[in-house]
């Protein structure tokens, strides 16, 4: 495996770009948005070509439609109940199935009571390109681990690139700055959906706006943005 950086790494690539010639020997690890074609590594999605520390190439794209992947966390909207499953809209190609028993403490007798339109925070357990994905509201050990129905709050959508930023570790500057001065809950799904809840509406609106506007900002810019927004709120309140 070659660890050498190609010139395309870190650059914007477009679908159909031939990125590098595949070596006759050795292993190239390929992630999302890439494929091999006629001896070349080819991008099939637009985005920035990235390489992990282990040498795996992948493309960080920026799209609205969510393509499910196993172990992603998602925020879904219950759309229907069919037998032993809830049908959940997760903004993917197919509706996801959430078994009624995939909640902490759920049994045949004690089923969770979810209505159409309710929000759930869940993880993807199966994802195939030709079939409905399956969700679960428990982790591997059967505990809820934070998953489950989301009550109240405000839901907004953003690109999957922003979701990845929000979920990255350490958390992005905008969340750190907001967290220093405000009290709120935030749940980010990989499917481009963010849920925010706080004791008062003004805070919820402020957090939502700050997050939505932070996509292309640097650390300093994000901190400045939060400061400005906070000042505005204090002004109107004062």
């Amino acid at each position: 495996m070659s660890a050498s950086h190609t010139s395309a790494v870190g650059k914007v690539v477009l679908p159909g770009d031939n990125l590098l010639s595949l070596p006759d020997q050795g292993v190239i690890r390929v992630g999302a948005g890439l494929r091999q074609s006629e001896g070349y590594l080819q991008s099939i999605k637009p985005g920035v070509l990235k390489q992990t520390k282990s040498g795996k190439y992948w493309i960080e794209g920026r799209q609205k439609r969510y393509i499910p992947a196993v172990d992603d966390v998602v925020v879904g909207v219950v759309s229907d109940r069919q037998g032993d499953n809830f049908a959940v809209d997760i903004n993917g190609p197919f509706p996801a199935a959430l078994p009624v028993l995939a909640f902490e403490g759920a049994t045949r007798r004690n089923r969770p009571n979810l209505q159409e339109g309710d929000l759930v925070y869940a993880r993807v357990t199966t994802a195939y390109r030709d079939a409905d994905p399956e969700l679960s509201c428990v982790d591997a050990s059967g505990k809820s681990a934070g998953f489950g129905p989301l009550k109240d709050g405000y839901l907004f959508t953003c690109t999957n690139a922003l979701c990845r930023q929000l979920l990255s570790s350490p958390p992005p500057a905008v969340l750190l700055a907001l967290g220093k001065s405000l009290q709120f809950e935030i749940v980010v799904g990989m499917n481009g959906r963010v849920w925010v809840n706080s004791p008062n509406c003004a805070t919820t609106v402020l957090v939502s706006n700050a997050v939505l506007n932070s996509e292309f900002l640097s650390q300093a810019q994000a901190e400045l943005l939060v400061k400005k927004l906070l000042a505005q709120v204090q002004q109107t309140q004062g």
Partner: protein
Amino acid sequence: MQPTAGPGPSSEALAKRSDRTELQLRVLTCERSLLHRADGSAKWSQGQTSVLAAIYGPRLTFAKKEHPETCVVEVLVRPKTRLPGPTERQTESLIRQCVEGVVLTAMHPRTAILVVIQVVQNDGCVMACALNAVAAALVDAGIPMHQNFVSVTSALMPGASVVIDPDLAEEQAAEALVCSACTTCRSWPEASAAQKGPAVLAVYTRGAMPVEDYLTLVELNRQGCERVAQFSVMAAEKSLVGKSR
């Protein structure tokens, strides 16, 4: 694309293009992600001609329409005025087959992609402009593709002269029009051996012409496509560069 209708062109328009040479394209502009509800959208303009394209999907489709192994592409074309008719059906069919030619439809079996095209302003070359808008919208939606396309129209004028990217007056005066779509394929230095020129993905003609003139126009379009492709890459990079920190 109704060159037969309407009043004849003024002789001035025919005599000389005022603002550009015969082989010069009009100013290109491309805006992306302007529709909130669509999964991808783009507005492409060539001079005064402007077309808006929106992509929805890949998403669930009717059981009747779904295909077990591939993603189904549906295209709807809305003209600027009047209801869609046979002309739009043909445009839809051509655009659908172009999209099928570049999208990796096997990546999303049993789903559908809907492409909606709204002609905003027609000042010639609507078909080419629509193709370019669709190509940009596909990138915006992040649909998996193994290549992309760009399109250019050129015209054979009375007196056997040729012009590229004609406006409506030139289109109406033209003896014949050739619109073609060529594939684009970029190669980074590490894959330089893969370099290949644009090839003809689609061609659509109107008017009768000698075969030699037709081949000249196709070649002219091919060269024009290289220039459009350069612009298209630049525009796409601009829309994606925000997060390249």
